[in-house]
């Protein structure tokens, strides 16, 4: 027993340690190399310049990204049945600007667009523009999009607006629900 143990010389111990370290190093290199390869491949793919079609099998990333989406759209109940306020966001408000002139014309229209977080064609949008005691009002229906809606407007001619600071208020009504958003702008 003692003799058996004696056969494990100091040199063999050192050799074993060296082997283990080599294995560790190889493992570390493998990990590092794999990660780097994956990263590089993705970046290169992002810079493709031709319309080559990939007929290869989908990657795990491509498959797994959609797992959460399965069943997301299962409810058949229309969203407009709740009584929560409608979220309305001004996505674009481009006032007329006489200082911006094209070669053939001037920018003479106030352009207001909103995002309505509700898919509906039955809503009504009310636009109120105020400047001091001056008020301009417009009304439009709603346009349903894939996931949101928008007002079927608004483009307001500059002739209806004097120069200066204005406030735009858009109120959206759909059934019992409504939502409002306001934003200031300058006509120059």
């Amino acid at each position, binding site marked *: 027993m003692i003799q058996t*143990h004696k056969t494990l010389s100091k040199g063999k111990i050192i050799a074993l340690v060296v082997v*283990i370290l080599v294995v560790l190093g190889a*493992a570390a290199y493998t990990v590092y190399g794999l990660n780097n390869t994956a990263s590089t491949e993705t970046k290169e793919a992002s810079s493709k310049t031709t319309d080559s079609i990939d007929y290869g099998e989908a990657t795990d990333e*491509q498959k797994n990204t959609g797992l959460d989406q399965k069943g997301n*759209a299962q409810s058949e109940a229309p969203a407009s049945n709740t009584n929560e306020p409608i979220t309305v966001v001004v996505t674009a408000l481009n006032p007329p600007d006489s200082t911006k002139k094209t070669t053939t014309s001037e920018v003479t229209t106030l352009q207001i667009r909103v995002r309505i977080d509700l898919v509906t064609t039955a809503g009504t949008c009310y636009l109120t523009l105020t400047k001091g005691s001056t008020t301009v009002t417009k009304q439009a229906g709603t346009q349903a999009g*894939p996931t949101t809606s928008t007002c079927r407007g608004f483009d307001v001619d500059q002739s209806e607006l004097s120069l200066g600071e204005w406030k735009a208020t858009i109120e959206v009504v759909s059934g019992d629900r409504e939502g409002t958003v306001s934003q200031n702008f300058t006509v120059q």
Partner: protein
Amino acid sequence: MAILIMNTQKMIHTLLLVSIFVIASILSATLISKSTHAAPVVGFTPGNIISENIFTNSQSMTAAQIQSFLNSKVTACDTNGTLRATEYGRSDLTHAQYAATRGWSAPPYTCLKDYSDGGRVSAQIIYDASQEFNINPQVLIVLLQKEQSLVTDTWPISIQYQSATGYGCPDSAACDSQYYGLTNQIRWAARMFRAIMNNSPTWYTPYVLGNNYIQYGVSPSCGGSTVNIINRSTQALYNYTPYQPNQDSLNAGYGDAPGDCDTHGNRNFFLYFNDWFGSPLYGNLVRTIENASVYLVSGNVKYPIADMSTFGALYPMGGVTFVNQSYLDTKTTSAVLGRIIRSSDGTVYFFDAGIKLSFGSCAQVEAYGSSCGQAQLLDDSQINALTTGPGMTSLYATTSGKLFYITGGEKREVYDNTALSQAGLSGSANTLNEPAIAYIPYGSPVIRADTIITSRQDANKQILNSTLAYPIRSSQYTAQALTAVTAKQLDDQSIAKLTLSTNSFDDSFVDGSGNIYVLTSDGKKLVPDPSSFQVTPIQLSTGIINLISGSGALSNPSLLKTTDNGTVYVIVNGQKRPLVAMEDLKSITGENVPYIGWMSGSLLGSIPTGNIIVGAGRMVKTASSGTVYMTDGYDKIITMTSFGPTVDMGIIPYVRTISDEILSRYTVDTSGLSSYVSCNGVNYIGLSGILYQLTISGLTARVLQPQSCNVLTKQTTPPRFLLAPNGTIHELKLGVLHPISSWSTYLALSSGGGSMVSVSYATASLLPSGAAL
């Protein structure tokens, strides 16, 4: 020892265990890392997710190709739901069992590649919608994947088909049943895309081309930013997913980012499209594999790109995408793409180097050789892809260092800012590439007088005298004399627009007063006797003459030589006459060291060569004859009968031998020579080698040529006493010789002063005799 051995053994075991643990840890970490790691998304621009041309490339795939593509993404469909739901962490359940736990539909599950609706397979439904609405089927494929994972799902449940493209499914609410069904979903999506691409007046969208506020997530608390949407295809995508990915979402690649503001829709659209079909950001510039012609596709029009310069100027529109000929055939071929384009709002631009510069008026567009109506209409997305630069100006500077004034459909090259200022055309300029205005023909350049214009192409120079340009015949001293004259380069096409003289500027010119100048090694020199040259040089303005270096005048007559020949020429009567010896110079000009002009141009060569000038006031003979002559001026020789007069006048007592041929060109005067001569209208008498001013009553003096006079010594006051060869001393009073009868008388007279010189018999005989003293 035993303990030591036992410890060693333990140590080995420990090392092995540690090693295994570490390796296991690394490998497991690797697996975890592989499952969650993703490289950040590169190249995603929220305002430009996909180009319009790619978005509308309905010919990108056939129905068969779509089918093949769908087949490739799902190799085995779990129709019966028997495979384990490991992807949901429930390897203990089959897909069917897992679906039951979630309330999802039961098998059979039909993968997209096999799915049919209304008698058509999904590939055909996709293809048909793409053709009906002229939308790239690849866009619809990616839409199906990013909304419901239908392309890669091996066991899709029925509700995934009901809302296959997510149409009618708000992010914060349930879906609307009126849009259900694969065909319905795909067609609604394609219809909306087409309406937006057409900017349909009946289809309102929350987003516009230009600045839009777009949130990072569903909740307003996620924040957002202003996004400049540059094309309608990107505008259309935001109608589907009205959010932009935040940086965390982009950093996560295909993965999830922490927090509640991680929106995937547009990010995943970009990733899937990029990975499966190539970059979605190209497609403006297209060609087929078979034909190298490149086109810029705008809407239904394709503009051929005629040159690399235009191609390079369009670099913001991306690289060239290879397309099928059938796609190209759907586009109307327009004229070659020029540099003047317009957007849908009527703004007309000039473009170069990826920059668009708006014209201020249609008149300005016409100045650049086009018109507002002729400006080529591009998609607004393409206009927007070009960086907005300053407004166009009439002045166009090039990166190659030129400056043009653009007017009337011509480009007038500007000599320099001074010329521009003198023409009243000063202003600001945009610096752009010269090839961009290669289409504009050259007009007359904007120049100024009294300058030198050098050709850029062959370095030939012209000197500009007012509006007339003289080609410069370059030579050593010409170039040297013109160093103070401003010299700038113009293109040959500009020079061709100048009024060019058929005469060259060489080494002589005349001013408005008829003064002739020649260019010597010392610069310009005035010719004292212009008539002697009998040439008609080009006329230059006083302004430019003043700029030519040099001052002073040539000798009279002018002495000139060339740089490559030692012969000095005397310019006389329209001839250049070689001088025989330098000691004759004084006879020519009257100066001991007259100025000799060194010339490098062609003037001397153009003047005919005359007879050699031996030198005036010289005695010459030929080898064939003993007759001795005195040269008088340039062209005459006087036959000498004795040496007396020449001695009295001070002619050098050396007889030069010349050839008969040279002698034959002289006019021989045989009337004889006396020492009573006239130089420049003044009469002289030669006495002991000096001419004394004296008029002899009743005797006509021989008129000598000025050149002969030049070599003779002259004094105004004659000597008082003359010693004749016979020893008689005479007093010379008022031109009359009075013999002095005695030495004492001479002493008495000379006490009052007066010098005495010898006089020859011949000269003494010329003077009248008076009463003896």
